[in-house]
């Protein structure tokens, strides 16, 4: 600007002042936020960590952002870990300790906060554990959880459509900032990448899944950048947990709490705001939500266990704090002891019936238990863990849908849906039961191959040694059912339900077996229990209606069917691609149901329960 001579100084100052004020108001637009979670991703499957591997998109993201090579997950299970990512809380504080529970309605979530601040919110998830019925969709205006129907039983959704729909959703509206969460399930077992992506070496199929996922992440990032235009884009990429790949005799994840399944990559990418760099600091997944909100200058979520890393990302000190890790899977699946661990300053203490202590620096694969030599360190970590976990923990219910509960009450069913039981103290150590677990894996794989008689003989063998093994009981019930031995199945499944009244799949299998026996009233009890445990599971209501109808109670059957219809109508939320809930075409959305109404309700035999509950 040229200043004309003769213009009064006061006027010049006034003009400059106005310009300055306008400059202050012309703030950078709120950034778009893209959260990418890759299920079951070990850091060492990535090129920038291992120096090998075929992951150019993630490597480029890491090179341009701040990349943590070993962030700590609080729990090696999909739904609990994602709930931690989106709430900033540990499982013991958000209450979702296992897949299949329901995210509590009062838990504050990241997407809620961003939606309230004008963000368009959308999620594109795959895999059974993150289906809407488990409640992590709360706060997202658009939640796409479509599974490939043929694969639903395995909890697997290698559909390529979902991230393409995510990309289309991102591009819809450039006026408002958006928060998009895209979840990739590919590296979860079974590992079946297209053969062009297989990597050399014994874990080539797993690494191939990661390479394949990386290709799609590359496409997604390009779409997000293009759709963002001049608006800044914050990308956060991480995983819910790793994968054991045989370390500690664990094949997948969930059973132990070793670093093979607890460490994940974590990348924050925001050019100009986050200085590039890489490190091994033990930051945590519970830090993700606090950090995103802090970077955006928004109020924090209440009562988080995680801390904001924003200062550290800006070049200051990183808020690294001790990590509490847990898995309830040995308890909830097998009836053995759950595991808790405390990870601090290079040490890890595992609070198993036979405790373990590892010096992670010299022994990153945790092969030398130092509990006998390093007594003082063991005591220190044990004490810290005990102090931290003294206060009562939260256990989420397996179903929290007031309307559904009312409906059940009106039908005369009394509740079973209290929280899953807290584990007693005197259970066997999971590491002493690894051989039984391996036998059960054999049985599981036989079941998946539909070799039900072979599976049943393995399960009978396990039950001979451990008659109350809950996993063996449930799977044996399913095998007997598939073998057409409904009477024996009912007997086994009744034991299963009495040991685990809150296991949805046990209720499902028993309901199914009773239907086949023509015991409709008793079956209705099971479907009602299932409806309470998983109130948004449409097939439970459908089967309840069917059982009541056959039991000669058309009035109550109609009421249950009304709930089924209500659920189906509500599914418009994950309606056709690229449409927000408000714009979804109800006709199209209504086509999608968990289970198509079958002429014979007994055809609703559950897929293998382990697959359905997923991990």
């Amino acid at each position, binding site marked *: 600007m040229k200043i004309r001579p003769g213009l009064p100084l006061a006027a010049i100052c006034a003009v400059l002042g106005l310009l300055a004020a306008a400059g202050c108001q012309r703030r950078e637009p709120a950034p778009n936020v893209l959260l990418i979670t890759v299920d079951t991703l070990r850091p060492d499957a990535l090129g920038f960590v291992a120096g090998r591997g075929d992951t150019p998109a993630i490597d480029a993201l890491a090179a341009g952002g701040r990349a943590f090579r070993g962030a700590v997950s609080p729990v090696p299970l999909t739904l609990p870990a994602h709930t931690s990512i989106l709430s900033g809380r540990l499982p013991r504080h958000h209450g979702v300790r296992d897949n299949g529970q329901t995210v509590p309605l009062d838990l504050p979530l990241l997407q809620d906060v961003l939606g309230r601040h004008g963000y368009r919110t959308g999620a594109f998830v795959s895999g059974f554990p993150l289906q809407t019925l488990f409640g992590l969709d709360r706060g997202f205006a658009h939640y796409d959880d479509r599974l*490939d129907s043929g694969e639903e039983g395995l909890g697997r959704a290698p559909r390529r*459509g979902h991230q393409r729909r995510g990309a289309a959703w991102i591009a819809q509206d450039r006026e408002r900032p958006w928060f998009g969460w895209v979840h990739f399930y590919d590296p979860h077992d079974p590992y079946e990448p297209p053969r062009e992506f297989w990597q050399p070496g014994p874990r080539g199929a797993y690494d191939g899944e990661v390479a394949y996922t990386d290709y799609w992440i590359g496409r997604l990032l390009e779409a997000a950048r293009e759709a963002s235009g001049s608006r800044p884009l914050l990308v956060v990429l991480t995983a819910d947990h790793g994968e054991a790949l045989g370390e500690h005799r664990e094949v997948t994840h969930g059973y132990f709490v070793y670093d093979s399944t607890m460490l994940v990559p974590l990348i924050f990418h925001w050019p100009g705001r986050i200085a590039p760099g890489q490190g091994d600091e033990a930051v945590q997944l519970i830090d993700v939500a606090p950090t995103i909100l802090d970077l955006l200058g928004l109020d924090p979520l209440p009562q988080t266990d995680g801390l904001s890393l924003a200062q550290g990302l800006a070049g200051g000190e990183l808020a690294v704090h001790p990590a509490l890790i847990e898995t309830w899977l040995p308890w909830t699946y097998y009836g053995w002891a759950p595991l808790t661990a405390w990870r601090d300053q290079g040490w890890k203490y595992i609070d198993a019936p036979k405790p373990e202590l590892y010096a992670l620096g010299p022994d990153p694969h945790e092969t030398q238990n130092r509990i006998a030599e390093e007594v003082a360190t063991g005591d220190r970590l044990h004490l810290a863990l005990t102090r931290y976990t003294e206060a009562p923990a939260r256990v989420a219910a397996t179903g929290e849908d007031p309307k559904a509960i009312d409906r059940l009450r009106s039908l005369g069913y009394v509740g079973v849906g209290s929280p899953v039981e807290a584990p007693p103290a005197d259970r066997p150590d999971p590491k002493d039961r690894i051989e039984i677990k391996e036998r059960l894996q054999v049985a599981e794989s036989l079941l998946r191959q539909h070799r039900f008689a072979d599976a049943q003989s393995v399960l009978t063998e396990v039950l001979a040694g451990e008659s109350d093994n809950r996993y063996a009981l449930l799977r044996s019930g399913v095998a007997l059912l598939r073998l057409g031995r409904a009477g024996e199945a009912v007997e086994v499944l009744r034991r299963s339900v009495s040991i685990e009244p809150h296991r949805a799949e046990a209720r499902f299998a028993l309901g199914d077996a009773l239907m086949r026996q023509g015991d409709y009233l008793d079956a209705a009890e099971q479907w009602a229990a299932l409806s309470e445990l998983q109130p948004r599971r449409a097939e439970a209501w459908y089967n309840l209606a069917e059982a009541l109808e056959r039991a000669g109670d058309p009035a109550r059957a109609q009421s249950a069917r009304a709930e089924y219809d209500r659920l189906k109508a509500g599914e418009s939320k994950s309606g*056709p691609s690229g*449409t927000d809930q408000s714009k979804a075409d109800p006709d*199209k959305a209504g086509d999608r149901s968990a289970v198509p109404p079958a002429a014979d309700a007994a055809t609703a035999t559950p897929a293998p329960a382990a697959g359905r509950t997923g991990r």
Partner: protein
Amino acid sequence: MTHLTLYVTDDCCLCDSALALLAAARAPEFRSVFIDQDPALAATYGWRVPVLHDARDAQELDWPFDLAAVSAFVHRDPG
């Protein structure tokens, strides 16, 4: 701005196969357009999806295509 567009519909398993082939061919960025939301596109591509379109010279690759065909199409130089 990408020049490649894949026309698809929802719940179309051929489209998923096409997407897997595009990945296997390491195709550069392409847009996915869901034609069910656009009557004009639905009229043009309705029975043909998945169709790969190159905006540079309006060439199209119709299903069924294999890895070799898709690879040649996405990496070609129309000059």
